[in-house]
């Protein structure tokens, strides 16, 4: 059983392997480390923000720099940290959970990652010349008013990264529709796979709105069009609508995958089947559907009128119903179970009260008239951090602890994991709970300073202290990763007494072809069924035969590089027309890669049956 034979390889070969890989498991690693890097960067920005706000009228950083900080913190965390890490987890687990050997388009999968990475790098290079400073929303009027090239970097970076995300969404959809193993019907898919599917639908229908919005903003800034130029009849509220038509589903893109993940974790560590599986699936769908209907609740104070405000208020509150169903079903899953509390479970248990608070403030924000007070204050800051940290980040940590064996073959250190959880959990509530009150006490968000003698000092001080606790937790986690890589406990193929197919492979991490023979699924929680009613192993659904595998390719990297260069061209061509060389050169290069990909036949290769037989023992 030594399929994952660790060969000594040169670092160059290792690097080349990752630069050209199309294997979903390796792409998951890339996403995790790419996203993790940006997560640390975004975290650093958050700490700088909190230090600036530790006392009234502080001058730790300047006002302009502060605006760059908040913009980059938001943009980085959402687009470059949370989403890529989530997509990384999807890549790591989803194909295995449906019993597939890879995703539908392995080449596109690699391209998605490299586009994300180059987009993220492009955005962050702006730190050297002046970062975007109009908030992560970059509302048109201020974004057009902003001097320098910061906003241009924002546009180019997000456009490139966003294209990658869109492809990722399409890829996962096609994978789940076409590549489920025999017997894996839709209503037998693990909740994480369901969530991946529904999230991909959200990506597919939400991201084009962002694409168009950025496109319009780009033309206004770079080519003198008048979409948002009031003097020529433009209208900046269009930007707000398009932004939130994307932006609200985006929030669900960030949380739904983790809802799926928590469902798997609760069920596994309670040794109980998920309570109300069907209701959970339909609740997820309903949340996603309603997510497209409520974007204007971000715009209650724009002056859309009472009819629009009422409709969107009711729609927003209605989301509480399916979300409530999910929370109670999770509780019912644990009820009567045998709950084992390890780190993954600890993050999941911490998620329930944290996210419930985020959900309840969400409903409170949905009440339009109450929102006239909450809107754009620290109340909102508190709310979305309760959702995104208390839901998404907690979920990511739970997922990392749960699937670390699957991804890296080792189990993260439990003690350090628990230390991370407790410091982060306490720090999180210290930082953000008080912010609800700060907002109501008259502190708008995105404030560089708050004034003395306005009753805001203590709250802000506590909040900053909390941020230090959270930072400490993250540092411990980093140490944990290094420790585990060096000395961590090696994991078996099924370290958690798992229920789903990702634990039914030959080893942790699984062999590069995933399943020697595609498994036959006999019901929900297929591995659990085989353990209780069968011989503990999945029944093969096909005879042993040659396995078709895709070829690795360096083209995705080069293609993304082309867009990256073209991005610079777009940004700087307004200063000097020589930059058109970069613009057209980069585009032509990317297009050339595309044509090369299109006309060069790539049939992949086969792993011969004989070799697979040899590996069997």
């Amino acid at each position, binding site marked *: 059983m030594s399929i994952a034979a660790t060969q000594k390889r040169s670092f160059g070969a290792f690097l080349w392997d990752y630069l050209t890989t199309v294997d979903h498991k390796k792409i998951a690693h890339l996403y995790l480390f790419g996203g993790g890097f940006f997560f640390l960067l975004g975290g650093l920005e958050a700490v700088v923000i909190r230090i600036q706000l530790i006392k009234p009228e502080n001058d730790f950083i300047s006002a302009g720099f502060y605006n760059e900080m908040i913009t980059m913190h938001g943009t980085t965390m959402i687009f470059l940290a949370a989403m890529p890490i989530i997509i990384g987890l999807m890549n790591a687990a989803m194909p295995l959970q449906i019993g597939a050997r890879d995703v539908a388009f392995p080449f596109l999968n690699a391209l998605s990652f490299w586009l994300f990475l180059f987009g993220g790098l492009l955005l962050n290079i702006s730190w050297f010349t002046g970062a975007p400073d109009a908030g992560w929303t970059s509302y048109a009027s201020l974004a057009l008013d902003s001097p320098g090239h910061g906003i241009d970097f924002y546009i180019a970076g997000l456009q490139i990264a966003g294209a990658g995300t869109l492809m990722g*969404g*399409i890829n996962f959809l096609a994978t789940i529709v076409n590549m489920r193993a025999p017997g894996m019907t839709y209503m037998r898919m693990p909740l994480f796979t369901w969530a991946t599917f529904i999230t991909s639908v959200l990506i597919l229908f*939400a991201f*084009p709105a962002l694409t168009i*919005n950025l496109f319009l903003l780009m033309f206004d800034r770079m080519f003198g*069009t008048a979409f948002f130029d009031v003097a020529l009849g*433009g209208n900046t509220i269009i930007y707000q609508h398009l932004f939130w038509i994307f932006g609200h589903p985006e929030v669900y893109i960030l949380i739904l995958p983790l809802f799926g993940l928590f469902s798997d974790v609760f069920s596994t560590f309670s040794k109980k089947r998920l309570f109300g599986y069907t209701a959970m699936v339909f609740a997820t769908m309903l949340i996603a559907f309603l997510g497209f209907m409520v974007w204007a609740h971000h715009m209650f104070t724009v002056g859309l009128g009472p009819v629009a405000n009422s409709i969107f208020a009711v729609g927003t509150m209605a989301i509480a119903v399916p979300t409530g169903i999910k929370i109670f079903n999770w509780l019912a899953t644990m009820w009567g179970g045998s709950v084992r509390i390890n780190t993954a479970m600890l993050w999941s248990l911490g998620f329930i009260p944290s996210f419930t608070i985020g959900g309840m403030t969400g409903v409170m924000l949905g009440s339009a008239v109450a929102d006239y007070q909450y809107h754009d204050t620290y109340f909102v800051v508190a709310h979305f951090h309760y959702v995104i940290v208390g839901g998404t980040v907690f979920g990511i940590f739970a997922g990392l602890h749960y699937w670390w064996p699957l991804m890296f073959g080792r189990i993260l250190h439990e003690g350090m994991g628990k230390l991370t959880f407790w410091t982060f959990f306490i720090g999180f509530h210290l930082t953000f709970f008080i912010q609800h009150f700060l907002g109501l006490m008259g502190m708008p968000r995105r404030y560089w300073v708050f004034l003395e003698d306005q009753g805001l000092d203590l709250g802000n001080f506590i909040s900053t202290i909390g941020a230090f606790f959270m930072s400490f937790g993250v540092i411990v986690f980093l140490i944990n990763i290094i420790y585990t890589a060096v000395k961590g406990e090696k994991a078996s193929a099924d370290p958690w007494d798992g229920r789903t197919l990702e634990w039914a492979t030959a080893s942790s991490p699984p062999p590069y072809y995933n399943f020697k023979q595609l498994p036959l699924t006999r019901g929900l929680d297929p591995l659990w069924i085989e353990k209780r009613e069968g011989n503990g192993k999945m029944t093969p659904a096909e005879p042993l035969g040659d396995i078709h595998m895709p070829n690795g390719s360096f083209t995705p990297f080069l293609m993304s590089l082309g867009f990256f260069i073209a991005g610079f061209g777009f940004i700087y061509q307004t200063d000097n027309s020589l930059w058109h060389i970069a613009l057209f050169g980069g585009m032509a290069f990317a297009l050339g890669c595309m044509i090369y990909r299109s006309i060069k036949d790539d049939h992949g290769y086969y792993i011969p049956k004989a070799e697979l037989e040899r590996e069997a023992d």
Partner: protein
Amino acid sequence: MSQDHSLYPETMPQHPERATLEGKNKFMGLWFFLGGETVLFACLFGTYLALKDSTAGGPSSEDMFGLGLVFIMTMLLLTSSLTSVYAMYHMRNNEFKKMMLWLGITALLGMGFLGLEIYEFAHYITEYGFTFRSSAFGSAFYALVGFHGGHVTFGICWIITLMIRNAKRGLNLYNAPKFNTFSLYWHFIDVIWVFVFTVVYLMGKVG
């Protein structure tokens, strides 16, 4: 399992474009892609509808649009959709030459459409001084119609590349899905044009 994807009349599957897993994935992926494209165009339509009266004193749609030319463009594009259907019909019958012929006609009709569109834009710019910088209406008009035109251009380049690449190889299970995805894409562009024609030109002229 073999790597031979060639098609023979006796083993010809009914849908060569969806006979392999790759083909199925391409087919499914393209449908999802078109779903995303729908949102893309919906946003542009929304923007256009919001800004179509914001002429900022410049020319308006009533002043400029002539339905005659646009009608010819519409006919060209609708016909090209039909010819691509013929091409797919011949693909399913494994008649490679005929498929190529009809695809060629499709591309030519697309180019005709594109030529007329370029003429139309040039006409607005020279006759009315109407550019994408003139007013919010100008920006929205060129963004929507130009975006569609860009899709047509991309489609023409795509099919020409495919035709040249496969000219000497005949039809097989590897390239059949490629032709099929092009055809789907081309229908989609056609449908979008019907909306452009209605929303931009008809509504611009009448109401």
